[in-house]
């Protein structure tokens, strides 16, 4: 019995690990969207983060630089999005798509020389506790520091948005940029900062994939996780805590699907692999059916262009 319990613990630990990139990217995007900006470039920023993290790890042989560098590169590429949507007032949807296409192409171009290089072992914390405590050990211990950060992030984000002045300003900008602007808030600056923060978090999410989760570089390795993260923000009706729950559900589906494949059920592999995407659609339908509920929580100015006459 204790063996089974331990196995469930390991399973939960694996689910947590697979939800980390979703939590990071979705929490970042949530802040961006709360300021009224819809950045569909999550997938592109994540993949740039993944390759730059991996490339820096190979070149510098230093995981700290790799992680910081991946965040920086996510941030840098989101500057393009900021410049276009905030300074040149372009359409958010089209710009985000361009960012994703550009990011995927750019990552493959940079990554050409890094294909097939094995990754480096990322230090895991409290490994001895993981092995000595049954069930709870594999759940709470033996993870990377990024996982602990990711699981704290939704709570921090929640506190930040609800209890701090900066959080209030961000929400004000997202809900009514004109009134915020009349109050003397620099809307463009706030939105720029939120875009850059979102970019950094997506970069970190990508680095988690290429440095820890599957430590190597594979072209297109984000495999739609960026889009699922975007769906998670809607699923969570822009509430950080629900992002955490949603990410765990999707992580659960991913791991379940892998285990069903491993067990060799007579269900086609492709159908199982399609499960996370089909589930995303179903969940979106269930959540969105009540249009009032969605409208109540959506940042009012989401995706709209703000221009202040000088």
């Amino acid at each position, binding site marked *: 019995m204790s063996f089974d319990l331990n196995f469930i613990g390991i399973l939960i630990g694996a689910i947590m690990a697979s939800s980390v990139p979703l939590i990071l990217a979705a929490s970042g995007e949530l802040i961006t969207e709360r300021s009224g900006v819809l950045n569909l470039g999550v997938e592109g920023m994540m993949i740039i983060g993944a390759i730059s993290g991996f490339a820096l790890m190979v070149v510098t042989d230093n995981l700290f630089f790799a992680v910081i560098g991946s965040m920086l590169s996510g941030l840098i590429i989101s500057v393009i999005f900021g410049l276009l949507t905030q300074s040149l007032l372009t359409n958010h949807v089209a710009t985000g798509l361009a960012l994703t296409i550009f990011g995927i192409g750019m990552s493959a171009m940079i990554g050409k020389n890094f294909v097939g290089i094995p990754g480096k072992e990322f230090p895991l914390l409290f490994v001895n506790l993981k092995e000595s405590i049954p069930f709870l050990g594999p759940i709470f211990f033996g993870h990377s520091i990024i996982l602990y950060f990711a699981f704290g992030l939704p709570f921090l984000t929640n506190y930040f948005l609800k209890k701090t002045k900066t959080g209030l300003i961000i929400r004000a900008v997202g809900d009514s940029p004109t009134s915020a602007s009349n109050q003397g808030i620099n809307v463009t600056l706030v939105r720029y900062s939120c875009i850059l923060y979102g970019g950094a978090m997506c970069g970190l999410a990508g680095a988690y994939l290429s440095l820890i989760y599957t430590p190597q570089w594979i072209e297109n390795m984000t495999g739609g996780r960026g889009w699922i993260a975007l769906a998670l923000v*809607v699923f969570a009706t822009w509430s950080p805590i629900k992002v955490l729950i949603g990410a765990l559900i999707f992580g659960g589906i991913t791991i379940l699907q892998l285990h069903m494949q491993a067990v060799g059920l007579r269900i086609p592999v492709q159908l199982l692999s399609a499960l996370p995407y089909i589930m995303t659609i179903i969940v979106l339908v269930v959540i969105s059916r009540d249009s009032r509920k969605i409208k109540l929580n959506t940042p009012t100015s989401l995706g709209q262009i703000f221009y202040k006459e000088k």
Partner: protein
Amino acid sequence: MIRVEKRNDVSRSIYFLTPVLAIFLTLFGGGIIFFILGFNPIEALKFFFITPISDLYGLSELLVKATPLCLIAIGLSFCFKSNNWNIGAEGQLIFGGIVGGGVALLFYNHDGFYVLPIIILSGAIGGMLFAMIPAILKTYFNTNEILVSLMLVYVAKLLLDFLVVGPWSNPEGFNFPETRQFSESARMPILFDGIRIHAGIFITLISVFLSWLILYKTYLGFQIKVSGLSLKTAKYAGFKGKTMIIIVFMISGACAGLAGVGEITGPIGQLHRNISPDYGFTAIIVAFLGRLNPIGIIFASLIVALTYLGAETAQIFLQVPKYTGQVFQGMILFFLLGSDYLLFFKIKFLGLKKNEL
């Protein structure tokens, strides 16, 4: 001194000139990237944009690639004009290919003029039905069409993978993930010997004409344009918004499905895992670069098709990955969107006035 002023009205000439500006800026940006990679930028750009189309075969390849791009973008223009963000054309293309390919396999032992039209029609219907999923979910369940149409791309890809590996794989194919080659009567006629340009180009040209007719000469086209400009106005005018959303998605899905079936019955001739090099996504760029205008889209599809060919040539001659094409495509869209700023704002370069000196 530089001063930015808001324009009172959009200048039509600038509206169609900014795409040209965007293309030049992309060339410039691409040159810089090639320079960073350690190539002579002029030489590299020549390999990318001139070498591929310097002979008849190359020109035919350009049209082969532009055929699906133009067709999908024409369909997308209906969605984008009415503010419906169908970004899952890639999935609709694949699903159209699956349905058309299935019918082609069904008619494997049939000969006759009727085979190809049935295949083409079923491909169009397949794409159309697939596009109706996000449309119906949007209209009746208020679901975000961007995310749904995109998720369905992955579903379609996995479905295709399942079919070509499993039930539809070639019985004599040594377990390669592909179906058998379609019979001759299921293939698009080749227009000239020795080059790959096929009859699919006529489907594209007819669709361009029809889309012009619908958009500019019918009440539906008027509704689509008004809804795109202002949803409130459209509601006030009493347009049936839900029906229109479903119709634009159907048109767009049918075009993508046609493009898919054109690929599998044209250059490919069977179903396998990669029936499209992301045409469905690239067509989004084509639609914008062509200003959602049928004629504009023709030109845009040729230019974007060139980035595909250029990437292939550059892969051979410069050993850069084929994804370079995507970098160029992304840049085109960045620069295009950015240069739209000039549509709404005038940038004035003011000299110092005499009395200021």
